[in-house]
C-alpha cells in the first residue's frame, strides 16, 4: 500500500477519542486508524495527554467498601466474553480487499444511485441527519459538482479519485464542510469509498439535482 497522504483532522480524531462521534463516523475513523500509523500515533498522544490530566486531578473518594468490593471481584471467575459474530459479508462486497473494521460492520443491501454507481448504507440507528454509506463508482466516471451542507468525510478503500485539491488513494481521507464544492474524478479502476456525512450533499448541476432523490444522498 502506498503511504497515506491525507489524514484525519486532529479535531475529529480528538472527538473520536472522547466518544463524541456517531457510529458511522466512528467506523470511518477506526478504518482510517487501521490503515494509518500516523493517526494511531496521534491517538496515543491523546491517551498520554489524558493521562497527564489524570495524574494532576483532585481525587474523589470512593465508597467505603470500594476496595473490599474490588478485591472480591478479582476472586470471581471471569465470565467468558460473548463471542462476537461478524455479520456475513454481503455478496456485493465479496472478493473486495477490505479493512477489518469494514468487514466487521453491517451494511444494508446495496442499491444503484445512478448508472455505474451503487451505494450501501451502514445498518446503524439513525443519528440526526447523519448518513454513512459505502459508495462504489465505476472507473473513469466523474461525479456531478456538489457542495456540502455539513461535514462529510470520505475514506478511500479501493481505487483512486481526485479533485482540485489532490488525488486520494486507499487509506486517504478527505473532509468537506459547508461551502466546499468539488467534482471528484474517478481514476481508471473502480473506486470504493466509505462516506460519513452529517448532512445531505447539495448538487450544483441539473443532472446532480435530478439524481439526488434517487441516489438518496
Amino acid at each position, binding site marked *: 500500500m502506498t503511504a497515506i497522504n491525507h489524514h484525519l483532522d486532529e479535531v475529529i480524531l480528538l472527538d473520536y477519542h472522547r466518544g463524541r462521534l456517531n457510529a458511522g463516523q466512528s467506523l470511518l475513523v477506526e478504518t482510517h486508524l487501521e490503515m494509518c500509523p500516523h493517526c494511531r500515533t496521534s491517538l496515543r498522544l491523546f*491517551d*498520554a495527554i489524558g493521562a497527564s490530566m489524570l495524574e494532576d*486531578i483532585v481525587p474523589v473518594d470512593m465508597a467505603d467498601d470500594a476496595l473490599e468490593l474490588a478485591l472480591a471481584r478479582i476472586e470471581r471467575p471471569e465470565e467468558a466474553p460473548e463471542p462476537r459474530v461478524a455479520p456475513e459479508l454481503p455478496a456485493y462486497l465479496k472478493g473486495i480487499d477490505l479493512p477489518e473494521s469494514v468487514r466487521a460492520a453491517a451494511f444494508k443491501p446495496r442499491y444503484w444511485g445512478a448508472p455505474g454507481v451503487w451505494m450501501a448504507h451502514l445498518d446503524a440507528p439513525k443519528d440526526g441527519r447523519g448518513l454513512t454509506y459505502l459508495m462504489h463508482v465505476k472507473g473513469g466516471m466523474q461525479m456531478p459538482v456538489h457542495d456540502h451542507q455539513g461535514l462529510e468525510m470520505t475514506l478511500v478503500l479501493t481505487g483512486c479519485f481526485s479533485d482540485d485539491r489532490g488525488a486520494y488513494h486507499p487509506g486517504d481521507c478527505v473532509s468537506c464542510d459547508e461551502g466546499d464544492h468539488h467534482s471528484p474524478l474517478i481514476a481508471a479502476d473502480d473506486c470504493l469509498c466509505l462516506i460519513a456525512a452529517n448532512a445531505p450533499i447539495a448538487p450544483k448541476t441539473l443532472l446532480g439535482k435530478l439524481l439526488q432523490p434517487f441516489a438518496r444522498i
Partner: protein
Amino acid sequence: MSFDRDDLIGSSTRMIVAETGLSRGGRPVGVPEALILRIAEGRDRAAYAQLFSQYAPKLKAFMMGRGLTAIEAEDLAQDALLNVWRKASYFDPSKASATTWIYSIARNLHIDGLRKQKRAQTLPEDLWAPEPEQAPDTHLIGVQDAKTIGVLMQTLSPEQREVVRLSFFEDLSHGDIAQALSIPLGTVKSRLRLALLRLRAAFETRAESKSAKIESKSV
C-alpha cells in the same frame, strides 16, 4: 449476597490489605508500573490493592468531569481497575506508562458505555495492537510518561491549554466550548489543532534527541 462476598474475600485478603499499609515505608513501592508487573507475574493482591487506592479515586473524579454521576463514575473506576487486573499481562512498560495504560482502559470503557449501554468488559486483549514493523512514527510515543506531557502542556499558550483541558475534562462539544469561552467555533478548532500539533512536534523532537543520544553512545 453480602456474606457471600465475605466468604470470597476471607481473612487472607484482609491480611493483604493490612500488609499493603505496612509496606509503605518498607520495600520500594509506589511505582505503578512495578505494581502492574507484580500483578501480571504473581497475581499480587497487595499490589492490586495499592494500585486501586491510587487510581480509582482519580478515575472517579475524571469520569465525573466527563458527565457521569458519582455512582456511574465509581462503577466505571471499579470496572477499569478490574480490567487492569485481568489484562495486566498485556501491559508493556516500554509502550506506555502505567497511568497512560490505565487511562486508555478507562476511556475505552467509557466510550463503549456511551455506544452500547451494556457491553462493558469486552475490551480487546491488547488495546495497542503491535505495530507493523518499521512503521513510521510509532516509536515516538508510548514510553513517554504522563509527567512529560504535563511539562509539554506548560509550553502551550494559556488559551491553547484551556481548550485542550476543556476537551479532555468536560463533556462539551466544541460548540459548547466556544460558547463557554465566548469565542467563535473556528477559533476553538484552530487553537485545538495548533495545540495538538505543537504537543506532537515536541514529542517528535524529544524522541529524536533521545535516539540521537543512544546512537552517539553506541558509537
